[in-house]
């Protein structure tokens, strides 16, 4: 695998993602003739099949791709910036902060003012929680300190989410605590996609130019600075980018854990341990992983669908344990 060139790796992943995207359109609670539906969706009076394809399955697939890519790329960027293998949106507060921001906006009526209030709440919450973890752990934080700060902030935000949902005017709010902790891609519409798109695209754009700088940072902060990299600005840029992308995504789907942790780890050896290259590959890998998880959720039998966040956590948590054991071996 190590002989795989970057170009081939990207081609392979793009192909895989395309194949999954197409097959995702075929998977639903009922079999429908997809080709016929596709042809009918262009007519003025679309059939039920066409409506299911374009209004139910397509938004769900696209949202899975965008959220997965966001989590994968953000994880890679965070791990590169903090030079810490355990940094990821789920562990250092970005995701739970986003959920908290979204909860405040959605359940207390702010979202009725303008529709982009929802991602905006997520972005602010995400940025706030991430900065809090960063400040708590300090600039030269070791792995353990960073994780501890993350645990503390995550616990705080989750408690706040529970409290707020208990106080929310909607009688249905309390039942949705699980949804914010283990996100779901079900029942989203194209409207939800438009709501999350501006923030995620802006975040991706900000991340795009950071690759070379993050590569330089692997040589150490001082070396990077001597190469003319403004660390202060780089840090802010990555934090802002992650908040924009993760905040927008999570505010629509709820927290989807471990993708930002697992994907960069698995792919790092394939890109020669370079954060810059890792970001693009992780974006593709994250999209593939989340889409695959979501397809498997749809294929599982049972009358009520499981949240996709359950699957990603089931796969991710053991991997996290493995990582802890691995880092412990190096430290001791």
């Amino acid at each position, binding site marked *: 695998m190590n002989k795989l060139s970057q170009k081939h790796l990207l081609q392979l992943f793009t192909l895989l993602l395309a194949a999954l995207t197409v097959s995702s359109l075929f998977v*639903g*609670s*009922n079999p*429908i003739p997809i080709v016929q539906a596709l042809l009918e969706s262009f007519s003025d009076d*679309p059939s*039920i099949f066409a*409506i*299911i394809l374009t*209004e*139910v399955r397509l938004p769900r697939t696209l949202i899975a791709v965008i959220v997965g890519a966001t989590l994968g790329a953000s994880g890679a960027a965070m791990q590169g910036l903090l030079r810490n293998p355990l940094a990821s949106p789920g562990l250092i507060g970005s995701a739970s902060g986003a959920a908290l921001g979204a909860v405040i906006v*959605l*359940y207390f*009526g702010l*979202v*009725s003012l303008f529709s982009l209030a929802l991602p905006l709440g997520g972005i602010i919450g995400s940025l706030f929680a991430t900065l809090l973890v960063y400040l708590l752990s300090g600039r030269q934080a070791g792995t353990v300190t960073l994780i501890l700060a993350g645990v503390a902030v995550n616990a705080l935000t989750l408690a706040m989410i529970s409290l707020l949902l208990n106080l*929310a*005017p*909607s*009688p*249905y*709010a309390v*039942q*949705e605590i699980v*949804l914010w902790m283990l996100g779901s891609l*079900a*029942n989203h*519409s*194209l*409207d939800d996609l438009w709501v999350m798109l501006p923030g995620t695209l802006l975040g991706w754009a900000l991340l795009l130019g950071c690759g070379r700088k993050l590569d330089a940072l692997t040589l150490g902060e001082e070396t990077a600075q001597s190469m003319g990299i403004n660390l202060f600005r780089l840090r802010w840029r990555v934090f802002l980018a992650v908040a924009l992308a993760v905040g927008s995504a999570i505010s629509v789907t709820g927290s989807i854990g471990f993708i930002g942790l697992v994907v960069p780890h698995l792919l790092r050896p394939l890109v020669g341990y370079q954060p810059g290259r890792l970001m693009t590959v992780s974006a593709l890998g994250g999209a593939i992983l989340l889409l695959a998880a979501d397809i498997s959720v749809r294929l599982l039998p049972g*009358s*009520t*669908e499981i949240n996709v966040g359950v699957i990603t956590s089931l796969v991710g948590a053991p991997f996290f344990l493995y990582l802890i054991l691995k880092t412990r071996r190096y430290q001791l």
Partner: protein
Amino acid sequence: MGRLFKQSLLLTLLLLSTQLQAAATRVVSINLCTDQLLLLLADESQVASITFLAQDRTSSFMAEQAAHHTVNHARVEELIAQQPDLVLASEYSDPALVLLLERLGFQVERFPSANAIQTIRDNIHRLASLLGQERRGDQLIAEMDRRIERIAAKPRATRPRALFYQVRGYTSGKNTLQDEALQLAGWQNLSSQVGISGYAQIDLETLLLAEPEQLFTSSYAANSDSIGQRQLRHPVLQQLAGGKPMAEIDYRFWICGGPMIADAIEALDVAHWQ
């Protein structure tokens, strides 16, 4: 011989005592559904307290009548203080609370939640005899049956396909009041046709493929927002039934089984022409 005599005497006394037992005079209800039946059947003086929910206009059909009664929050201490001679609960009332009340010597009667009109009749009958208001109970049942029969007897050329779609995508399949009411009012219930039983979620694709001609919903807490409530605003629902909006049937008709089911069936009947 003497033992048998004593036993039969005891039994006779016991039977006599239950027959002579005076109708309850201080009744406490700890469930919205028994609240409403109590208010419908009892004399004012028989009601000691009802739950605070009975005064809520969106969930209670009897909110107006409930307004001037003492309320409880189904907490054991406030209930004891009211010294009831009868406590009305639902089968879903907190079992720990019911057990505690029984151990303290209170008579607790638990009523099943109604998922059929027959259960409503049975509940009314049972509570009426506990309260010593049998006549009022029979009148209530007769009036309800008369109103339902008027709708059910209407000749229908077609029975349009319909279903209930509630917050979080919940619907009412077989063995629910909504199913029975829809059919009595001349609709087909698609949810029971696709094999749903009781209250369960119906996924969006199954809903769309069933091609309903009318969606019914019961809004609750209209001025609040949640992911579950947003699901009712999914754009795809507006493309169904030729863009016909969902018809509203108030929750207070169904949240509990009671004679107000007749109001719900009449509202479902009116929806044919809207």
